[in-house]
């Protein structure tokens, strides 16, 4: 085929590209957005409330690290057609896989509890009782996956991604100093006081979680993205990561323009930030902020159990997938149901201060797992017999190893810090 550069061809080629892109879009955007879950929103709110615009620059390297790691797993999914847990089992054997899966299960159970807690507090900020929001939310996400097909579930998730726009709106409503915000984003300012270093570690540490790698790769496989379509899938990943950090930018900006400026430096959780916004940025901004929190929590409360069910089944050799019927993949659906039920019931029945150890345990499990997962990923992505011509190039390896080592370090520090008193 000869390439035509006549201008009249452009619109048709644009549409062909658009259709091809739309056929693979989803996994990357969804995975990256879930990164802004209840915990993420809290961290960004805190960064804005305590340090104003000064830490905005960290979002740029965070985005790069996120893109690099997510791109690798998406590529592995497209090239091998297998999930990350499948590959780890095939290359590293049963015992390692089993231990990894058990830790992930613990980590994700804790995370799910945290997401439902986020939903409860977000709804409380909107004056909805947790005894209404949590059971309804749990029922909704459960029915969605058990009754829906992959296509439907993915569309609902994409709609959930769209609702993150509420953070953009609340950012605008807060009337921030845009020029200062933009300058702070591109111009790094490092101050070596303890508090701001802790904050930076917190920001980086929440960026990449082990479950994301598994979910993204499984979703790429279930969507049956092929090597020839991969170029479009990569854009899905890149756009997803950028959207995620744009949302993070607006959360920080909203809190910086209001809470920081008025000296309201202490935020206990994400819902607290929403409530604090009310007198400063108006009722609409506060409602949008709380709504965003509910959306993000519910969204993550579905994806986390889903991801867990995927990789536990893959790794241990059970059938998995939203497109399977319940009787075809009993373990998959049992895990999904069990995690949601445990998460929701814990939030409803156990008092808040007793939930803290569970959430803490999951943070520790995540921190311990992350090095293993990232190193397995990097090694698998360099295997010629698996990846062929699509294995990592040298420059990519340098960036990937550097950012992985940094993230592993920061995440481990964060885990240790979470046991100590907050500065």
């Amino acid at each position, binding site marked *: 085929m000869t390439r035509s550069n006549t201008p009249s061809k452009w619109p048709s080629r644009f549409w062909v590209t658009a259709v091809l892109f739309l056929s693979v879009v989803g996994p990357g955007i969804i995975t990256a957005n879930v990164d802004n879950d209840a915990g993420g929103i809290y961290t960004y709110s805190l960064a804005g409330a305590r340090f104003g615009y000064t830490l905005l620059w960290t979002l740029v390297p965070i985005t790069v690290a996120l893109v690099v790691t997510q791109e690798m797993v998406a590529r592995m999914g497209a090239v091998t057609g*297998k999930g990350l847990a499948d590959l780890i089992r095939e290359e590293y054997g049963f*015992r390692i896989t089993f231990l990894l899966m058990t830790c992930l299960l613990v980590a994700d159970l804790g995370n799910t509890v945290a997401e439902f807690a986020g939903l409860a507090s977000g709804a409380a900020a909107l004056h909805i009782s947790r005894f209404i929001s949590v059971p309804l939310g749990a029922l909704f996400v459960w029915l969605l996956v058990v009754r829906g097909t992959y296509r439907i579930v993915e569309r609902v998730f994409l709609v959930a991604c769209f609702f993150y726009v509420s953070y953009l709106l609340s950012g605008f409503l807060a009337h921030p100093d845009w020029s200062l915000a933009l300058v702070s984003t591109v111009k790094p300012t490092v101050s070596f006081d303890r508090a701001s270093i802790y904050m930076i570690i917190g920001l980086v540490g929440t960026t990449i979680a082990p479950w994301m790698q598994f979910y993204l790769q499984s979703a790429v496989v279930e969507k049956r993205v*092929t090597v020839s379509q991969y170029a479009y899938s990569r854009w899905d990943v890149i756009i997803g990561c950028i959207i995620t950090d744009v949302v993070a930018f607006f959360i920080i900006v909203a809190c910086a323009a209001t809470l920081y400026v008025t000296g309201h430096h202490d935020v206990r959780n994400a819902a607290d930030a929403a409530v604090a916004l009310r007198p400063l940025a108006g009722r609409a901004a506060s409602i949008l902020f709380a709504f965003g929190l509910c959306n993000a929590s519910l969204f993550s409360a579905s994806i986390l159990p889903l991801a867990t069910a995927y990789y536990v089944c893959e790794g*241990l*050799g059970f059938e998995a997938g939203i497109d399977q019927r319940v009787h075809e993949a009993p373990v998959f659906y049992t895990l999904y149901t069990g995690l949601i039920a445990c998460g929701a019931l814990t939030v409803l029945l156990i008092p808040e201060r007793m939930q803290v150890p569970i959430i803490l345990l999951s943070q520790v499990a995540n921190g311990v797992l992350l090095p293993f997962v990232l190193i397995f990923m990097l090694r698998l992505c360099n295997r010629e017999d698996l990846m062929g011509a699509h294995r990592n190039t040298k420059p990519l390896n340098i960036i990937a190893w550097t950012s992985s080592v940094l993230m592993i370090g920061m995440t481990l520090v964060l885990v240790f810090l979470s046991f100590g008193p907050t500065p």
Partner: protein
Amino acid sequence: MIYFTELDHLPAFDVKGVFLGQLVDLGINPIRNSSRVEEYLIETPGRERLVIPHVQMQAISNRALQAGQVAREVLGTPNDALIRVKKDVLDQQIIDVNSRKVVRVTDVVFEIEPSERHSHLRLVAVDVGAAAGVRRLLQGLLAKHRIRVVSGIFQARVIPWEFVNLIEPDPARRLRLRISYDRLAALHPADLADILEELSPDEQRAVIESLDDETAAHALAEVPDKVRMALLEQFPADKAADLIEEMPPDEAADALQSLAPAKSAEVLAGMEREEAQEMRGLLGFDAKTAGGMMTTECVIVRPEATVADGVEALRAFEGDLDEVDRLFLTDAEGILRGMVRLARLLLARPEEALESLATPPVATVPAHADIRTVLGLFYKYSLLVLPVTDDHDRLLGVITADDAIEHTQ
């Protein structure tokens, strides 16, 4: 009976009792014997790899291996013509031909067969159950007899080796290892399609390539559109054309429609003229209408023809005879006049006119009718086939009940 988890890392000694090293893998040569362990791969304390051929293996127990005099053959490159139990079987996905499932192997079961001067191992089954998982977890942490007791509490799911089909995407190695998917050809296309769905793209291609075109096409007709599209895109146009030609026309048209326009044109060009013509006709219809659901594979004769002519038409019919249960009678304009069930044909005298045996069609449907209308007619009249006509009542094709059922999901 002995498990691979019990054999793994067994110490091996030579005839004088000198420690040679630990067992790290077992090799089976499928050309010589499909289940006997041919080579024992030993790792020496110096990290060297030794191979002990099976004829030199004198005694095997769950405590140690005892090799004969000439036990040393240092290994250069691994022998690619062997199935390696640890590398190729353990933790890999296999096809369980008997229960028609894709499963992952957790442990491998052997039988020790002692004879006069030496004993050998025979691979009898793979274990995919929870018990095997427990053995893998506890391997090396507890005494072997304790592990047996603990794992005995859990369920074993054992698949006999003769029902195990390994999956090897590399065609050259597949040939060397004598891996074929012949046994899969005997499965129902829908079962085969379920198996295909579980595999990665490379593995799907491996299975499709090694099946004959007809079997492969029938399986492909059953897999979800997206899987089929991805698979057909991978094949060169002529192979894709061969596969699509073997599919029922309606499925073939769907398959062509799902391909990228350039590829679809290429495939059409690679098809035989008659079939390509038929495809072009079907491609004109929207997949969500009666025209898109119908097949053009039906036996059509003139009303004035005799029973003998009808039988002749059946003989000359090139499509799938198993799908045919009646003849369609059309006049010179191609307008449907009636249908003759095969049972009637069977009982009638050869010179009888078909017209006298015919029953008028209960219902027909125009090609542009939507799926709902089609299904409505099937339900209302309990139809087996529904003729599809154009605006001038000319017969275009038929929708069979099984195609209609597919659209109810």
